[in-house]
Each structure stands twice: as C-alpha cells, then as structure tokens.
C-alpha cells in the first residue's frame, strides 16, 4: 500500500517563531507530543517534541540525571525559555517520507532511524500528513 493510503491526515504543525509556551499549550490541547515545524510554504524545517523542550530547559538531563529531584528547578528553567522561539530547540534534520512510497519502505525507514512517526510530504516537498507506527500496524491486521 502507498503511504498516502495509510497516513494520519493531520496538518497540525508548529512554526519556527512559535514560542515554547505556545507549543506547550498546543501539546496540552491537542494531545500530541511532537509536531513537524513548517515554514510559510509548508515545507518541513524541523521537528519538535516534549523531550526537546525538557532538554532545552535542562540541557543534558536525559543523559545524566534520569530523574527529577527538584520540580522548582525545572519550573524556573522552563519559565526562562517560555518566550524563546522553538526554532532554537527543534531537531532540524528530519527524516520524511513521500506520500507515494510503499508501506515497506516506510516501515524499513522507521526501524532503521528508530522513530515512532514520519512526517509525510508530497512530490513538491509540502507537508501532507504523518505516518505513525500504529498506522502501519493497523494495516497489517
């Protein structure tokens, strides 16, 4: 099957100039935990997740600490970056897949790159949806 037949047809995305606070509000309201970052043309320029925000507030946290000992510290650090643009915290190198690719190519890419989802682009490189692992699993049943 083609990726476009399986993908989640959702264009929820962030813009590079969105603030950290606005992104957290988007995550809370939508229930999403990561979104592609797109430019004015709809091309993907990055991806940003909850993890990127925590790492932005507490650099090295995931590698070193493995546990929060002081919530006030995290809260204070988050407030320090809440008005920053998310472009400073996003991952700019994004693995994407074209909507006309086969599901096998997508599954292989997800395993090799160890990602849970892939932003999907059309032939012109415009963001058109997201392929999640569950979209592939659902199709295999």
């Amino acid at each position, binding site marked *: 099957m083609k990726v476009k037949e399986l993908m*989640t*047809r*959702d*264009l*929820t995305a962030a813009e590079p100039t969105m603030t950290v606070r606005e992104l957290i509000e*988007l995550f809370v309201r939508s*229930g999403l935990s990561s979104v592609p970052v797109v430019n004015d*043309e709809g091309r993907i320029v990055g991806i940003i997740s909850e993890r990127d925000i925590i790492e932005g507030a507490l650099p090295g946290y995931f590698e070193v600490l493995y546990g929060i000992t002081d919530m006030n510290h995290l809260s204070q650090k988050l407030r320090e970056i809440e008005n920053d643009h998310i472009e400073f915290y996003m991952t700019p190198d994004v693995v994407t897949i074209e909507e006309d690719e086969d599901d096998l190519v997508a599954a292989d890419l997800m395993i090799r790159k160890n990602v849970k989802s892939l932003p999907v682009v059309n032939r012109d490189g*415009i963001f058109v949806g997201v392929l999640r692992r569950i979209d592939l699993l659902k199709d295999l049943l």
Partner: protein
Amino acid sequence: MIITVTPNPAIDKIYWIERLCLEDGEMPVMRATRSYLTAGGKGINVSIFLARLNIETIAMGFIAGETGRALERRVRDEGITTSFIWVEGETRTNVTIVEHGHEARPIQITEQGPMVPPDALKRFIAQYKRALQRARYVFLGGSLPPGVPETFYQELTHLAHARRVPVIVNASGEALTHALSEQPWLVKPDTRQHPLGTPEEILRTGREWIAHGIGAVLVSHDITHDVLITPQGAWDLEARDVQFKNLLGAEDALIAGTLSATAQGASLEEAVRWGMAAATACAESEELVVTDRQRIEQALTKVHVHQL
C-alpha cells in the same frame, strides 16, 4: 483539493421522538426512538460529502477540549485531512430534535462555541495560507465563534483571491456583508435567521449583488425552492414530491453537490441542479450525507428548473 472552513464546528446529536410534550404542568421525559451522533458544521458536512466522492479536502477551523478531539477523530475517519487550530474551552455540542410528523421543522439547540484568542487567529491565517497553495476551491461557512471578527470571511476570501482560488461563502449577517465586498465566486446566504424576503425581493437582491461583481448567488426561499442568479440569468429550482425524513445537512448537501459537480467540469446551472438533487436525497433519508450516485440520480427527476 478543496478547503472547507468551519470556524465553529460541532458534534451534532440528533434525536428522533414520537411526540414533543411541552404542555404546562408536565415534567416531560421524552424517549428517543433513534439517535445519531456526527461531526457537524457547514464546512465539515461539505467535506464529508466530498471525501465520500473521493475528492481531496482539508477541513479547517477552531476546536477545543474532549469534544474537539472526538470531532477531529470522526472527521479524519472520513478520509478528510484535518488542519484545526486548538483553543481553550470545549467545542460545541448541538442538539436536534426531530418529531414524528414534523420532520420538515426540526428543533435545534446550538451552543456558542469556545473563545478564539488573537494568537489562535494568527496561527489559523498562517495555516490557511499554506493550504491555499494546493487549493482549487475554498468553502467558508457557518457562524463565527466568540473572538473571531466579522471581517473573518472577508479576509479569507481576499487571501484566496490573491492565489486565484474561487470562494463559496455560506453565511449571514455582518460576516456575509463584509465577505461580499471581496466578490466571491458563489454566495449562498444563510437565510434561516436572516431571510431575504419574497421571491421577488430575493431576485432583486441577487441581481444587485451580481451587479456589484459577485459571481453567482444561490438562495433558498422555502424548503423546496432555490433561486440561482448569475450574470447570464436567473433560474428557479423546485424539488417536488419530497418525502421529508431529515432536513439537517440538506443545505450543506446542496452546496457540496454543486461544488463536486463543478469540480468535475459541469456548468454552474447543471451543478446546482445536481446539488439540489443531492439535498433532496439527503432530506428523504435519515442519513445526514447521501452520496450514492443512483439515489441522487433518482432525486434528480424530482428537481424542476425554469428560467425567471
């Protein structure tokens, strides 16, 4: 691809009941014989119709809360691409009660919708501009939630025209008046709360709008009549011998049917006739959206057109 904008979408809950008991002194408990839950709002209904005909469509608007999530899931399950802006609060739940024997006059209870703050409007415009790059048509329809200015449809029409994308506006009041200044391709005034008057008054208003550069005007003047006014002329379309079961969504089917036929190359006059057949097929069914070609073609035999 066709963009539909529903600024104030809703989950629609429809109840069919045998008898509406509202006499004084009663503590009425009315048991529904059937009920139905669906994602709703003008643009959403248009998108559902188009998606079932395999026409690519993006649904846009503002959603909130658990109801917003339920709505988004239902819209996506129809094969529609979603591009909603999340705001605080709760998306509307609108209730319709259809009483046996009074199917042509359902009771509707609608909520106001969540407040849309300025930053959400800004994000919507950015997302809309991106979607316009791939759009063939734009449909703008329905009421505006709190916080959305009356000039919203005017701005969206302006932005679409900058990309040479034709726009259909289905609205009323100030939102419609402002949008008219941008001369949309097709205007369908929502006459439920702002009727345009007698057939003669509708014709006069429609011709005035055409003289001001509107592409075409489509007006419903009673349950079974529509008037189409274009620079080439005016037509009355009448659906005869309709067995009403459910009027909810019929107006949206009229627009969606017109849009789908236009997108497939029909002239506007032919497309509106097809749209009216789609609306008739919906009105004669308890389903909100009927896209079965055979049923619409059967309904087409009930649609009679004469030039005014």
